[in-house]
């Protein structure tokens, strides 16, 4: 106790004590060749714990006790340097390291490793590469930056879901998302609405380490089948407190508009469609006698209804409804302030962040306030404690999912003959608008979500001696969410009931504890041993409650307290838990031969008693050939490592907490409680297991100016969990069983080159490519096909094909004789206009064959330019709304421009069937609505200028940087829809991929920013 007091005292007194006998050395660290400043270089006074780091401008300042004069300067990518300083100024130039990135420290589960010594595959993205990028979700910031990491935002709604797949889809029904671990805390990806990853301010992140192969991930055992994203936040460094302030401001626009018929086209085509339908019925509607009760009368009557105060015959109105879905004033603003520093005993990092991004859709926005404190304290030489804690408040203005009439994008269905407002200035709604007008829902409704998120942990680490320590961590992830909805009497939900209000409350609490021993020792200078033994426990709890009501006395009173009729409410709660024991041993011999063995036993509450525990082992080995004598002297080859790994990981997430049980739920009839069956039992339900082999080659040429990695892998998932259809006469639709196997084979290539390094100029390139082939290899043995044609989409499961493949009727174009839409029959040759007679074929694949990123950075004096292209290739997208928006005027929905190319007369050769009102001509789900989804996108480009040191020091600053940055600036694609990065939110899932349904295009942002350090 006395010791602790002493230390506390010491901490407070330290600045005072230190002032007594020391001098201050300041200077600048720079690259010996390019003379660029080197930020974040570590400067330590040799023989002490005293140290600091250089700022953005390369400058540093350090207090050195008397009698000490040697500084040790280290920086990633540079050779270490010791400098003896006699005066008070020291400008130090560092030479580039020959091993460059290979010395990088990579975070692995429960430890760190030097990249050179890795035997598994881990992709690292530095926080500084994505910092201040004007997106709200860290997954989007990672897009295109790591090989084999596929990132796809469902749509352009801010704060909404983003899909992340590492090395393809591994599961049909269980989660396909990686595990996210922030500073040792596996976070919850549960949420009531929106993407929970949006709650994290990634400007605080030091590094993202993405564990891709099984040996890297297996230490996370059952949680790791889909890879692990380890997020390490910034920690303080001893030395002078450094402040960073960053502000950005920018504008958001949709990447692309689809384009719909204008009023003239709408009127012409609709009338044509009606006349065609009449003619088929043997009616000539242009004959006044036959006009009554004709389709044409119906169409023209509807036009009259739809045109409100205006006259459609004179084309008095031509509303571009598509544009009404978007907010053309959408802005992004952000401020981040951080301070970091410390002493040799205490280190801290503190930050505050604010971001306010308007979505491009009306009513969609996200505002996030975040704060973080990371603290690390040496209580004694042996004992260290610390805290990483973040508090976030995220406010989102949400819009409904894509298949709701009230979602802004469905406004495109309205007729261009409909005026936006009536003559009194009120918005038109049904029946003047064809469907309910989403703009009314926006104007007279609100959907605000507010989420408080607290992720943090406390830890203690005890060093028994220099080779053994014990670390214990206790972490929490607490989410508290309130969704508040109100829809006035004019809206879709509120009409007829004098308004509708709903209040939802969601709470998710997960806590976990990690406790492990780490042993690290070098024996006889050639045997390096690094071993971990430990356990972890994690508990998830989530609770939900809501209440909803109607009959609001006035539109000003929007809380449920004012509802005249409380319609209902509910509250639910669920729990799950994981218990794990793990061990890992790494062995390195003579800096050449690497071996790693790990094992983890996981228990999950999700499974029945007999199936609860799973064992997940992994082994990997590496051989650094460039250390061998026969290669050591090569001038060309500077590094070569061959590595291979095998491991087993598991998956128990994403299919409910009680999937193995036969369950009955509460129900009600006539105000009395009842019980109804909801789930068919399967006591044999067990872990999904993923078996992965990875063989990789790490190489460096020409002093590592060219370096990279090549990996081939084969990931086989067995015991896939799926809700298999059972005969409905059981009273159930599906049963959750382990039915099948799936395989992902792939090739990943990473290539980093320093193309030009000369004085004042540097050009580097990073290319990553990942080919992946997903194949379903087994269903339950009886079945080889689970057809997914649901009338809008065709995502199916077929043995031998990729997950979610499009399987269904193949559109055979238009019969030139009569304009009928045709489908191929089962023989693949003859055609039919009867959808029920159409054969089924594989007509598309939503899984990309290749994804990649291509990043170039240029540095010239204070200027920096970075340009990131990101691409997705070989996938198809199905427009589930084709049957509404490209449907030959089957109904009154406004149509896409391509409908102008419709069949009109005998002999016309086209792909757009004859227009027929109510005719359903060729509009059922088929290959007609499938298109290639390949795209290349200028994902992120930044131009920055760092003011020169001389100017900055006069301003008493350490750095000043101005920049312009943009996201999704250019898109190259043949996809005819809004945006090829799409998977409509209301059905997005493992199998349901590549579907478009009034999904908003992505956000294109251009922002300007200013960053100041002092």
């Amino acid at each position, binding site marked *: 106790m006395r010791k602790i007091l002493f230390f506390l005292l010491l901490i407070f007194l330290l600045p005072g004590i230190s002032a007594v006998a020391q001098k201050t050395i300041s200077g600048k660290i720079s690259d010996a060749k390019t003379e660029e400043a080197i930020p974040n270089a570590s400067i330590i006074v040799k023989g002490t714990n005293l140290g600091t780091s250089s700022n953005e401008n390369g400058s540093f300042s350090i207090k050195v006790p008397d009698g000490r004069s040697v500084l040790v300067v280290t920086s990633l990518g540079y050779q270490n340097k010791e400098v003896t300083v006699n005066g008070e100024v020291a400008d130090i130039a560092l030479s580039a390291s020959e091993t460059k990135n290979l010395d990088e420290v990579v975070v692995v589960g429960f430890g760190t490793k030097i990249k050179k010594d890795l035997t598994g595959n881990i992709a690292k993205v530095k926080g500084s590469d994505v910092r201040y990028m004007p997106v709200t979700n860290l997954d989007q910031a990672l897009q295109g930056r790591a090989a084999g990491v596929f990132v796809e935002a469902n749509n352009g709604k801010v704060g909404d879901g983003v899909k992340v797949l590492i090395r393809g889809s591994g599961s049909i029904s269980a989660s396909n998302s990686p595990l996210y671990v922030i500073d040792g805390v596996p976070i919850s990806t549960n949420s009531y609405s929106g993407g929970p990853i949006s709650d994290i301010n990634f400007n605080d992140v030091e590094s993202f380490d993405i564990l891709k192969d099984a040996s890297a991930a297996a230490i996370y055992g059952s949680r790791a089948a889909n890879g692990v994203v380890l997020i390490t936040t910034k920690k303080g460094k001893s030395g002078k407190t450094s402040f960073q302030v960053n502000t950005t401001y920018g504008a958001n626009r949709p990447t692309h508009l689809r384009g719909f018929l204008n009023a003239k086209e709408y009127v012409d085509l609709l009338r044509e469609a009606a006349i065609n339908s009449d003619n088929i019925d043997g009616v000539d509607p242009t004959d006044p006698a036959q006009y009554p009760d004709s389709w044409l009368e119906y169409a023209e009557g509807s036009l009259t209804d739809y045109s409100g105060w205006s006259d459609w015959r004179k084309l008095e109105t031509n509303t571009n409804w598509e544009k009404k879905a978007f907010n053309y004033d959408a802005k992004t603003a952000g401020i981040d302030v951080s301070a970091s520093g410390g002493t040799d005993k205490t280190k801290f990092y503190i930050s505050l962040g604010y971001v306010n991004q308007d979505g491009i859709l009306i009513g969609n926005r996200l505002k996030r306030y975040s704060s973080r404190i990371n603290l690390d304290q040496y209580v004694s030489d042996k004992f260290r404690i610390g805290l990483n804690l973040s508090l976030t408040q995220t406010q989102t203005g949400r819009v409904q999912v894509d298949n709701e009439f009230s979602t802004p994008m469905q406004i495109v269905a309205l007729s261009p003959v409909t005026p936006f407002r009536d003559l009194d200035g009120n918005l038109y709604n*049904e*029946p003047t608008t064809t*469907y309910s007008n989403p703009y009314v829902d926006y104007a007279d409704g609100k959907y605000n979500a507010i989420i408080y998120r607290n992720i943090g942990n406390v830890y203690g680490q*005890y060093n*028994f001696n220099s080779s053994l320590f014990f670390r214990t961590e206790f972490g929490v992830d607490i989410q508290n969410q309130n969704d508040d909805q109100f829809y006035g009497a004019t809206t879709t939900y509120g009409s*007829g*009931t004098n308004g509708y209000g709903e209040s939802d409350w969601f709470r998710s609490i997960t806590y976990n504890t990690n*406790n492990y021993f780490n042993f690290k020792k070098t024996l006889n200078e050639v045997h390096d041993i690094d071993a971990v033994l430990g*356990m972890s*426990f994690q*508990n998830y709890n989530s609770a939900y409650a809501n209440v909803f009501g109607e009959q609001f006395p006035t539109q000003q009173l929007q809380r449920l307290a004012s509802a005249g*009729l409380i319609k209902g409410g509910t509250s*639910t*709660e*669920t*729990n*799950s*838990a994981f*218990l794990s024991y793990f061990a890992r041993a790494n062995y390195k011999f003579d800096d050449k031969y690497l071996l790693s063995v790990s094992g983890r036993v996981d*228990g*999950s*509450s999700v499974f029945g008693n007999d199936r609860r525990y799973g064992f997940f082992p992994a082994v990997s080995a590496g051989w650094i050939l460039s250390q061998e004598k026969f290669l050591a002297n090569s001038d060309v080859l500077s590094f070569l490592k061959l590595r291979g790994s095998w491991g087993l990981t598991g998956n128990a997430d994403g299919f409910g*907490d*009680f999937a193995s*049980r*036969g*369950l*009955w*739920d*509460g*129900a*009600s*009839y*006539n*105000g009395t*409680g*009842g*019980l*109804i*069956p*909801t*789930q*068919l*039992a399967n*006591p044999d339900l067990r872990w999904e297991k993923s078996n992965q082999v990875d063989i990789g080659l790490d190489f460096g040429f020409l002093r590592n100016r060219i370096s990279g990695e090549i990996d081939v892998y084969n990931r086989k998932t067995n015991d896939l969990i799926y809700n298999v259809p059972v*005969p*409905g*006469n059981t*009273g*159930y*639709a599906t*049963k959750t069983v382990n039915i099948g196997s799936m395989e992902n084979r792939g090739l990943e290539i990473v290539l980093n080159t320093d193309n030009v390094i000369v004085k004042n100029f540097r050009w580097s390139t990073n290319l990553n490519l990942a080919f992946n082939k997903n194949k379903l290899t087994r269903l339950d043995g009886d079945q080889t096909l*689970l*057809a997914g044609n649901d*009338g809008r989409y065709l995502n199916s499961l077929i043995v031998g094909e990729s997950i979610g493949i499009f399987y269904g009727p193949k559109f055979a174009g238009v019969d030139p004789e009569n304009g009928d839409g045709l489908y191929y029959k089962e023989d693949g040759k003859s055609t039919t206009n009867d*959808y*029920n007679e159409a054969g089924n074929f594989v007509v598309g694949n939503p899984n990309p064959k290749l994804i990649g990123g291509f990043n170039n950075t240029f540095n010239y004096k204070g200027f920096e330019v970075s340009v990131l292209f990101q691409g997705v290739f070989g996938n198809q997208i199905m427009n589930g709304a084709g*049957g*509404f928006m490209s449907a030959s005027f089957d109904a009154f929905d406004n149509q896409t421009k391509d409908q102008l190319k419709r069949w009109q007369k005998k002999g016309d050769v086209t792909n757009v069937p004859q227009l027929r009102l109510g005719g*359903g001509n060729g509009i059922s789900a088929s290959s007609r609505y499938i298109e290639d989804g390949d795209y290349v996108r200028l994902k992120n480009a930044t131009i920055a200028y760092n003011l020169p040191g001389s100017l900055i020091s006069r301003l008493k600053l350490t750095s000043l940087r101005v920049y312009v940055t943009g996201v999704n600036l250019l898109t190259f694609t043949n996809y005819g829809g809004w945006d090829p990065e799409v998977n409509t939110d209301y059905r997005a899932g493992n199998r349901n991929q590549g579907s478009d349904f009034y999904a908003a295009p992505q956000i294109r942002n251009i922002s300007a920013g200013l960053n100041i350090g002092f």
Partner: protein
Amino acid sequence: MKNLIIITGFIILITGCSKQLEVNPLQSVDESFVFKTDANIKAALNGAYDVLSGGYLLGGDMQLYSELLGANDEITWAGTYQQPREIYQKAILTNNSYVRDTYLQGYRAINICNNIITNIENVNDADRDAVKGQALFIRGLIYFELAELYALPYSAGNVATNMGLQIVTTPTVNGEVTDMNKVPRSSVKETYDQVIADLIAAKPLIQGEVGVLGSEFSVSAVLSRVYLQMANYAGARDEANLVIANSGASLESNYAGAFNNMAPSSEDIFVLPVTAQDGTNDLWLFFSIKAYGARSGDVRIKQKHIDLYNLGDERLALFYVGNGFYRSGKWQLQYRYLPIIRLAEMYLTRAESNFRLGTSVGATPAQDLNKITQRAGLSPVPATLANILYQRRLELADEGQRIQDAKRLMQSTDGFAFDANELVFPIPLREVNAGAGVLKQNPGY
């Protein structure tokens, strides 16, 4: 010492957590728990009613299907949903999700009933028969309703060979899909035999008054419908007569009084409760309009139907104009009880059957017909078969009896013969796929 503490602490952590994996659901109970006690089995019975009253069954869709199939150009489906439109157009795709979900929900309720009947010994002696009677009633009713949609009508003949339904009378337990679930489809006759057997067995067991639960009289009323389909007029007459004579129900004095009620009306033989907190009213959803909180008025009543009524007919007055088209006033408001069988139907059934048989059981056809016309505010009409059937059509308009009547009376509708394949639902695609090759598709699909 410190080292010892750490290691001991670690060992405690390792051993202490395994109990934490024993987690139970908080919104659900294990199936094994449900059928052990009297109270739970009664709750399951209430659950069966909940399913029965769901949207895809008698909460509105089954009635809607009947009206759309039998539209006869008197109503239009103008809504955007393709599934009801396919039904309206008699061009139903086998992947139609309404067709799928009605089938699933039907068997879901049947499975609950099978569970109850199998475990009936666990119900208190006093209530055992009544509970069993209720379960048999629901099972019989649903098999009948499903047969009307998914099988050719009885009137199409060949009842011993035309395909009916898969008859499953054993409960699904422990997640096992048994051979019982893989039986071939019974014939139409066997299906009707099952329906009749259940209803006849239910009749002496079931207890209670007419209303929101099954009663002796709702059993009889359903039986009268079954017999009518089979052209067993004596059976239909006797069951209808029993209801009229003994149920205690009486016609509302005004026709409109039979609808949009917040409690059972005096003429309801079987009615489903709909309140703000409970129940489903899909008839309101599809027949009503935005102004009453529904959709955009998916079902429009055409002039052709309106022209069937005489001026001064109270039933005509119940139609209203909304969004420019006639709308059925029966389904105008949301939180209103849904009549499934009304006493008026029993009068019409008795009248028709008596007329056909030349009998006067209970009353003469003219007396029964008068009850209907008088209440509608009309002067008496001669009791001819045509008049009885005409009044039946007006009286029960939009209540989900149209296609059944058209089929049994061998009337064509919208150009389709009464026994056309197009007027029969397909077996849902998912059932054919999951049916292990045993479940045969309907002809024409």
